[in-house]
């Protein structure tokens, strides 16, 4: 399944269902590319209004936010860490790991 996403709504990690081409026909991003935050600025610069991305993402996200599963995943990780996050970056690292574990 694919869906059309406005450039403002693009999230890093979305996967392109079709290539993105600028007004000169040059390919900016190829099919299957994983969007990173730096790409979003580039798309805006080129005035690309929207892109086609794969839709599986949504289901994964729904799962990732099930609080019970998240808590369990976090417990698993903390066991291997033997330390607690002390700052936003370490919290973000744990969050990223929890999300991957649930996917």
């Amino acid at each position, binding site marked *: 399944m694919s869906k059309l996403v406005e450039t403002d709504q693009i999230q*890093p990690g979305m996967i392109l269902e079709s290539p993105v081409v600028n007004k000169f026909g040059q390919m900016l991003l*190829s099919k299957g590319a994983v969007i990173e935050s730096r790409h979003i600025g580039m798309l805006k610069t080129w005035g690309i209004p929207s892109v086609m991305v794969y839709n599986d993402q949504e289901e994964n996200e729904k799962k990732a936010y099930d609080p019970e599963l998240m808590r369990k995943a976090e417990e698993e990780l903390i066991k291997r860490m033997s330390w607690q996050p002390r700052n936003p970056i370490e919290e973000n690292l744990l969050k990223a790991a929890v999300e991957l574990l649930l996917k």
Partner: protein
Amino acid sequence: MDIVEKITESIKDLPTLPTIFYAISEAMNNPRSTTDDIAKIVSTDQASAFKVLKVANSPFFGFRGRIDTIPQAILHLGFNELKNIILALSVIKFFSKSKYSEYLKPRDFWAHSIAAGICTRMLGASVKAPNLEQYFLAGILHDIGKLLLLDLLGEQYLEVFRIIEKKNCLIKEAERASIGIDHAEAGRLLAERWKLPPVIKNTIYYHHFGLNDGKADTLTACVHMADIAVRMFDLGNPGDHLVPQPNLKALNTLALPADVFTDIAPALMIDFSQTISHILD
């Protein structure tokens, strides 16, 4: 003779890296070399040249699927990045005939290293680090001391994994308890033997601390954080099951964006599985 002396002695007998790497380094240092000269040297080994191109097209270098020839790779990635890809592939090839243990299978070992290489480069890119061409290589080679120790000590090194099983500790701790030196130090000895670039030698030696001899250093800090992140993400096998705590001094040197890991994780996972098969298959 104690183990450290034995290792130092054995390293002297270790073969050098394939001549292609030294030939390229020399050609690059010669101001008269042209792109064609270097392309010719790379192409002398067709199988390696093919792998180099596959890796050069990896998404994290930013030129996905557009590099078809070695001269194009030089044009897009630059001499140094190309040289470093070749160096990484040479080291992987060098150890492909080595002894391996059930505890540390080649594919799992390299999976951890390659994931760390990609993650190091992504972290470097996220803080707009200069000399980004060193990042992939530094990440890939950070644990090379483990393979060296396994290669040189064989059966004796397996004691390390038995300690890990019993105590559930980090591999470096088990190495120090059982052998007297850890893989960071062994890796430094190997880097010296092979005359690897000093920055790479230092990141191998200091990757557990994230600081270069106590001083802030972006590359060393990125390798340090990447090692921890890919352990957390469970990519490959570093030899133990734990995730060490980041060194705050190293982490603070980087001033990473607050959502850096959730931002790079999805791309890291995809680049990782592609690059693994490009390099190892």
